[in-house]
């Protein structure tokens, strides 16, 4: 018997050892050195992470800056510049953050609580997510050199997630920079604590970042956007290449080591290109038609329901994805599958019904007389134009009259803020890490969803701290969403990236690319 036990123990240990060996990358294989050339679609509007929600800024800035918290592979907050998780008072109104000691900014200065307090206050005054959190914050103060305390006006569940999200992030800057650039003014000096420091920004040529030699990685294993980050490459060279076809050609010839935001039609070509690895970026966006609920035709809920009932999403998604099944996903959850804590699996939702009779009935009930519905889209993002065009055809078959207005992106983002100028507009929804961050469910974003029931549920979600209760509330939000139809949710579209075969260590599961822990094997 004991022999058998010993044998089982040896076997178990062997299997465990094998698993560990397989999961940990071969340390000897990781090489330091080289320049990683990344082709992206253009110039960021700024590198001030507090200032914009633009994706390109997020991607670049997250290599320079860090926040107190980051997100792990399950999109859960994990400590980054904070030593650990905060101490929360019993009444849930005081959060105490212990900072890591000896963390250096790229200018050589040590990070202290003064920098953190100043940065958080700036972020709270300017960032979309910061403003949401700061509406509930009474005070943020330095307790001592390495301790920061946040006092809340009311109990809320969104403190950690708000501090951890990478978009429009709560990045920590040196206090001197915060003092120099007030919240409404873009910072033009970019100093952080991240594994790469900014060396040079030559617009339309490149943004050059170099390894920050004084960077102190965390001890924990890399996970998601956080954990142990090591800059293996000497330099990151971000090259703006506005033409997608040129980016494809440059990755094929090896002029670029990594190319982001590629045209989905290039998928087959890249898959068959020697030395190139095509990467399907999941998730990318869920496609969405946003209804103007402040004034005009689409304030009528029946009309919005008719829109939702009329659409046959699968052919639309397939077409937008260039005919590739692996580049889109049919899903009704408001949170992506990859955002596991908030992904719902509710059955019987009125999504993708393609029920023309129901749509016609709802149109009759809405009292719709064929008035043209102004549907605004842009060709600057081909996928937006494609799904708007295909929707128009299906909707007109169901009895709608669609006035498709194609404008450039700058016009669209201006007009969508004026309720008199449109009825519906196209856009994409990225990953929202907390249910309270879904902008299209609230009254402050174009489309102006101001539904009593949704507002009540979201307020409760912001207050409630227990995950199970929050998830049930989130399911109620999802059901209410499909009844009120503040926006029409289409399927999930994936993005396309490509890299040369010698680029190693890249985490393809991340929604936005990160190049720490990436090395060149050539």
């Amino acid at each position, binding site marked *: 018997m004991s022999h058998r036990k010993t044998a089982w123990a040896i076997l178990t240990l062997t299997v465990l050892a094998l698993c560990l060996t397989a999961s940990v990358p071969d340390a000897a294989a990781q090489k330091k050195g080289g320049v990683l050339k990344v082709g992206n679609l253009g110039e960021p509007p700024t590198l001030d992470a507090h200032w914009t929600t*633009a994706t390109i800024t997020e991607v670049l800035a997250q290599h320079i800056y860090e926040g107190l918290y980051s997100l792990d592979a399950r999109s859960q907050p994990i400590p980054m510049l904070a030593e650990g998780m905060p101490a929360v008072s019993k009444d849930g109104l005081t959060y105490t953050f212990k900072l890591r000691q000896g963390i250096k900014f790229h200018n050589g200065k040590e990070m202290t609580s003064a920098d953190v307090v100043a940065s958080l206050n700036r972020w709270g005054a300017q960032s979309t997510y910061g403003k949401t959190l700061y509406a509930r914050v009474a005070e943020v103060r330095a307790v001592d050199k390495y301790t920061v305390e946040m006092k809340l006006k009311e109990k809320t569940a969104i403190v950690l997630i708000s501090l951890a999200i990478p978009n429009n992030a709560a990045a920590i800057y040196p206090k001197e920079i915060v003092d120099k650039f007030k919240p409404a003014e873009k910072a*033009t000096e970019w100093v952080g604590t991240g594994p790469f420091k900014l060396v040079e920004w030559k617009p339309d040529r490149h943004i050059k970042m170099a390894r920050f030699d004084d960077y102190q990685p965390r001890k924990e294993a890399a996970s998601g956007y956080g954990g142990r980050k090591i800059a293996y490459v000497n330099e990151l060279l971000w090259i703006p290449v506005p033409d997608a*076809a040129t980016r494809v050609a440059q990755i094929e010839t090896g002029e670029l080591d990594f190319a982001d935001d590629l045209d989905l039609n290039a998928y087959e070509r890249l898959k068959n290109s020697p030395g190139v690895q095509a990467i399907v970026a999941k998730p990318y966006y869920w496609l969405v038609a946003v209804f103007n609920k402040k004034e005009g035709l689409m304030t009528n809920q029946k009309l919005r329901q008719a829109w939702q009932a009329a659409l046959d999403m699968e052919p639309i998604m397939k077409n937008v994805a260039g005919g590739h099944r692996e580049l889109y996903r049919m899903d009704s959850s408001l949170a992506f599958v990859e955002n596991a804590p908030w992904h719902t699996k509710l059955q019987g939702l009125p999504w993708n019904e393609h029920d023309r009779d129901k749509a016609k009935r709802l149109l009759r009930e809405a009292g719709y007389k064929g008035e043209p519905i102004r549907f605004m889209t842009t060709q600057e993002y081909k996928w937006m134009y494609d799904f708007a065009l295909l929707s128009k055809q299906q909707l007109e078959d169901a009895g709608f009259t669609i006035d498709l207005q194609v404008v450039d992106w700058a016009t669209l983002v201006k007009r969508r*803020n004026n309720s008199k100028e449109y009825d519906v507009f196209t856009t994409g929804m990225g990953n929202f890490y907390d249910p309270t961050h879904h902008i299209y469910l609230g009254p*402050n974003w174009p489309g102006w969803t101001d539904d009593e029931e949704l507002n009540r549920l979201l307020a409760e979600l912001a207050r409630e701290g227990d995950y199970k209760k929050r998830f049930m509330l989130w399911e109620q939000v999802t059901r209410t969403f499909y009844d009120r139809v503040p926006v029409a949710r289409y399927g999930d579209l994936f993005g396309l990236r490509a890299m040369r075969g010698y680029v190693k260590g890249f985490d393809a599961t991340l929604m936005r690319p990160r190049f720490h822990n990436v090395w060149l094997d050539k």
Partner: protein
Amino acid sequence: MATYLFRRLLALLPVMLVVVTVVFLLIHLIPGDPVAVILGPEANAQQIEDARRELGLDRPLHEQLLRFYARLLRGDLGRSYFLDRPVTQALWERAEPTLVLMAAALFVAVLIGVPSGIVAGAYQGSWWDRGLMTLALLGVCVPGFWLSLNFIYLFSVRLGWLPVAGYASVFQDPVAAARYMLLPAVSLGFNQSALIARIARSCMIEVLRQDYIRTARAKGLAERSVIFLHAFRNALVPVVTVIGITTAILIGGAVVTEIVFNIPGLGRLIISAILRRDYPVVQGVVLLTAAAYMLINLMVDVVYAHIDPRIRYA
């Protein structure tokens, strides 16, 4: 001549004033908002309003125009909303790639266009004429971007002879600069060479019908001397006009070429500025382009006098 030049340069001022005013009004009147683009897709209306105030975009249009004039008088073109630097600096940084591209493309256009036109005109109706004019027709018809993409596919992706895209300064690394510039210059210059070839051919044919050419032949001059010494120079005046126009067209044509070949020049700058409504940059580039157009025209007029002694400016 000096008085003439001074008068012409003085005449630039009112034209420039009209150009900047029209451009200012056009770019501000078309819909679109730089602030909404800067702040990103998730910004709300309040944030947008705050940032508009910060940039002075909430002021009445006439007030913004007067401020623009005042800055212009001080030689200040303003500050880019996106690039975090003065417009003059942004223009200066991008002038070199565009000028190098234009010069290289013009060189290609003249190198192909003028000899082709002369040969076709001198041997009208021959196979040379038909072949070259068919090529010229193709050159006019084929869109520049299509040619560019095919060049990239053939010479860069398939054959690997030249880089796909990019730019190296001719002053820092002339060899790399030549490798980067060859495909853009040929694809941009080929289109224009077709126009030059067709004009050169017509002029050559017209000149070769003149009495003095018949006289030259009657004197027993060799055909080469007739063509190059007597006909060519007289056929050149309209060709110089076309080359001048071509240079001006290249400023516009460079936009597409710069995008496809990722050349960080003025063309790329204005496209991104228009798309993002970076008003000061758009105004700056248009002002510079308008000045370049007018100066090119002036240079063409000056060159006339050197080619044709009968032309004199009071």
